[in-house]
């Protein structure tokens, strides 16, 4: 209403040109919603991702669906440059993107990616924009090319924008704008050198990144520009989640079973990471449920050493979570720094770790539909650990093999522990031996499709589900054996395949499922969305939904109900106790679990060593907005004529009015003649 008021009167004559009272702005511009941006991240030495700063980038919209038309656009079709290129997904390859970026005719790229019911297009066989050796330079062992990756995620796109459109409606309105305006006459293909007519459809992409250069530069700016010390970037980080089955005691050693919570992709908000590490998370939660069930039904009273379930956050960005946990352990501040006023679990360090079992990519077997899967154990000469796992697999249809012994350890959180203490017994459980099985590592196509196959139906009889169930059972048995006290004789209960189906469905298909909704006591409409849950670590100022979900699930699976009367607010953790948490459930039950969150911010940000090459320094740039609008532009032909006409008209009128003014007494003689005493009016 505020806008339409001046409009009504200023356009008194013009409103009628088109129906309805839109503002002139709306007549010109269409805002495109449902976009996911590529944005800027910085580390100790460089910046990656996209930034359109200092200006928005714009260009004529051009849809490209074949390789030859893409080459033609770049090499010869320069009539309407610059362009914003809308690529078919299979053309969004590393070489094409770099070619478009380096050509001086393209200002931005748009690709289509519909999150709901996403599938991998059948003509995309592999796409991994991650590094050949993920987290290169931060491990304890030397790197090798585990992944057939192109490192596209780590390219710096300056004055260039790349957006994914995630809504069909937006994509269609963009296409219609192109089809109605930019196609050459008679629909002839532009790549045969057919010219299009003005007006032309144009898109403007806004991705205004405030950070520049590197993380040290960003924080330097924060010091110089504002007295408050707010830098134009925020460190990546979140919370690690960990928990033990029983209360941790001072004398106990620890058997850690770990995986990572976060994932990565070219568009970080499209990082679903089905095999990086969703399969691992699901397996770990299944283990927790299995052992938790035994605890609750009384068949497991206690263990000599403690089994600790650990979810690391931010691992995709140079091991943020695990490096912080190790840092705190070394400084004797894990799990909490000492506070005499609180009841705390005992602090422990690296020597207490009796075994470190990490699940790292466990979802894709080379023979995809196999019912007797092989998992590879990458370890630092831990034969006893390997045989414990192999014995654990006895009961299940799964086998463990030591990986090729000449290879270094693959990139994994365990590297952070080994880096400080080579004697930590580490075994990394993977589905690959020498090279990742995951063809879509670090991309937006690492989705459920990638795990169950294009025709797969997710139910409890799917080979994947059985593989993960058997893997979970084997590791659970091995963990029990390792934790003691007695050699395990009894069989374990069957792992819950329905739980695996439910978890995969909620994480990878529809996070707005009843299972997840039950974990939240309050309204979660904008937290859980009816699409896969993205797993980008994000900046450290907010706790991710995924972290909270993992925390709640682990608490439910490992905890037990305690006597609780009434549905009041009594079921909460007392302020001075950090040993266990009491969960306020919506169904009015109270659960006691030994589950904790642990800060997952890189140690580099604790002492402000932003140029560290030892700890992760990734930070995300702040930005004001990422948006997109489309409009049509005209040729200057009409405007040039208007300008010429305007100048001519003004010139002529100046001359005419000057002469009229000079000769007024003669021209308007009848009025002027009243000077002579006669009052003669022109008409009357």
């Amino acid at each position, binding site marked *: 209403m505020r806008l339409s008021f001046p409009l009504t009167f*200023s*356009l*008194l004559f013009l409103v009628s*040109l088109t129906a309805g009272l839109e503002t002139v702005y709306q007549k*010109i511009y269409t805002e495109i919603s449902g976009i996911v941006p590529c944005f800027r991240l910085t580390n100790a030495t460089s910046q990656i991702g996209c930034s359109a700063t200092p200006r928005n980038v714009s260009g004529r919209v051009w849809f490209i669906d074949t390789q030859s038309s893409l080459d033609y656009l770049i090499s010869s079709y320069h009539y309407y440059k610059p362009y914003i290129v809308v690529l078919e997904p299979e053309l969004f390859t590393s070489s094409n993107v770099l070619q478009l970026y380096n050509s001086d005719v393209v200002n931005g790229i748009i690709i289509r990616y519909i999150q709901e019911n996403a599938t991998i297009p059948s003509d995309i066989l592999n796409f991994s924009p991650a590094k050949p050796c993920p987290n290169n330079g931060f491990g304890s062992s030397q790197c090798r090319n585990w992944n057939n990756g192109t490192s596209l995620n780590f390219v710096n796109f300056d004055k260039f924008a790349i957006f994914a459109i995630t809504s069909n409606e937006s994509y269609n309105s963009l296409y219609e704008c192109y089809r109605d305006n930019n196609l050459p006459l008679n629909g002839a293909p532009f790549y045969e050198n057919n010219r299009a007519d003005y007006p032309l459809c144009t898109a403007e992409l806004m991705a205004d990144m405030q950070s520049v250069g590197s993380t040290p530069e960003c924080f330097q700016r924060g010091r110089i520009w504002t007295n408050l010390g707010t830098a134009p970037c925020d460190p990546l980080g979140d919370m690690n989640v960990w928990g033990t089955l029983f209360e941790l005691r001072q004398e106990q050693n620890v058997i850690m079973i770990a995986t990572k919570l976060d994932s990565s992709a070219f568009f970080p908000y499209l990082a679903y990471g089905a095999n990086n590490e969703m399969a691992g998370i699901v397996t770990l939660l299944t283990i927790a449920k299995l052992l938790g069930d035994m605890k609750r039904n009384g068949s497991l009273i206690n263990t000599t050493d403690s089994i600790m379930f650990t979810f690391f956050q931010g691992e995709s960005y140079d091991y943020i979570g695990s490096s912080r946990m190790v840092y705190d352990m070394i400084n004797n501040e894990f799990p909490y720094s000492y506070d005499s006023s609180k009841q705390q679990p005992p602090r422990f360090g690296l020597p207490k770790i009796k075994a470190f079992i990490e699940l790292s990519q466990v979802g894709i077997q080379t023979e995809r539909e196999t019912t007797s899967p092989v998992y590879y154990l990458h370890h630092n000469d831990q034969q006893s650990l390997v045989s414990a796992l192999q014995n654990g697999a006895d009961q299940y249809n799964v086998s463990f093999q030591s990986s090729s012994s000449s290879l270094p350890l693959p990139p994994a959180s365990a590297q952070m522990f080994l880096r400080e203490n080579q004697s930590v017994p580490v075994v990394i459980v993977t589905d690959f031996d020498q090279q990742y099985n995951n063809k879509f590592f670090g991309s937006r196509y690492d989705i459920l499709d990638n795990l169950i196959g294009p025709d797969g139906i997710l139910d409890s009889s799917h080979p994947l589900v059985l593989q993960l169930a058997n893997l979970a059972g084997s590791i659970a048995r091995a963990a029990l054996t390792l934790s003691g006290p007695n050699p395990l004789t009894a069989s374990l209960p069957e792992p819950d395949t329905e739980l695996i189906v439910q978890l995969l469905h909620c994480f990878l298909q529809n996070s707005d499922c009843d299972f997840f909704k039950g974990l939240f006591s309050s309204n979660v409409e904008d937290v859980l969305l009816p699409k896969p849950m993205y797993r980008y670590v994000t900046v450290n100022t907010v706790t991710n939904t995924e972290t909270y979900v993992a925390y709640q699930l682990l608490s439910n699976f490992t905890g037990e109900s305690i006597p609780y009367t009434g549905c009041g607010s009594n079921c909460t953790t007392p302020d001075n106790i950090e040993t266990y948490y009491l969960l306020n459930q919506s169904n009015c039950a109270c659960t006691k679990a030994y589950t904790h969150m642990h800060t997952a911010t890189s140690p580099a940000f604790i002492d402000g060593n932003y140029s560290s090459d030892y700890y992760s320094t990734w930070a995300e740039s702040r930005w004001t907005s990422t948006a997109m609008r489309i409009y049509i532009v005209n040729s200057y032909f009409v405007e040039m004529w208007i300008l010429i006409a305007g100048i001519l*008209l003004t010139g002529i009128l100046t001359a005419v009015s000057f002469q009229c003014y000079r000769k007024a007494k003669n021209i308007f003689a*009848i009025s002027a003649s009243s000077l002579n005493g006669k009052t003669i009016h022109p*008409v009357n």
Partner: protein
Amino acid sequence: MTVLTAFAYGIYTFGPPVALFFVTVARHPHEIITMILGAFFWLLALLFASLVWIIVIPLKDTPAFTLPISVILQEVFRWLYFKLLKKADHLLEIVSEDKSDLRKHKIAYVGGLGFGLIAGIVMFANVLSVASGPGTVRSNQYFVTVSAFSTQVMIILHICWGVIFFAGLESKNWLYIFAVPISHMFISCLSLLINLANTPAYFLSFGYFLCVVFVALAFFAAGARPKTLVDFFKR
């Protein structure tokens, strides 16, 4: 569309009236005051029209209602403006060096220029601001062009209406007095119809035709005759 575009349309629309201002008005301070006063009266008309627009809530989105109200109010305020100038006539006569009857026509012309300029600015300014780019109107690529042309027509007509209306009131010439509001209402309401036909070209042709007629009428009302116009071509 760029800044150049906005400049082109700005020159086209406001170049002529600004040229008239500099040639005929700018050198006479009291005429500048008269012109600003005319612009002020037009704005008062707009203010009252907007009050009507605010009060009559159900018809807010109906230009067919607000448009005639606005035209009537503009004509009422043109009449009030005449009344005010009439009261101040002897004062204006003192400050003016011109004591002939031509002086009254000139005052009318200056007032009309004030009405026209302010109407043009209010009509076209926000179109001009978005015309600086980068997009152009989707549904009608000549939207800004048509806006510029119509605005120019209205500015020219306002100048002529000022001269004719004042001459009519001065000499009790009912033809002049009624020609102004009727033609104003007519051209305004005609603009509502191009919505249906979507033929701005007809509207603009008619608008410029009306301009020619009213320029001629204004010259005639101010005392020009075919035989006196010959003097225009003398040195």
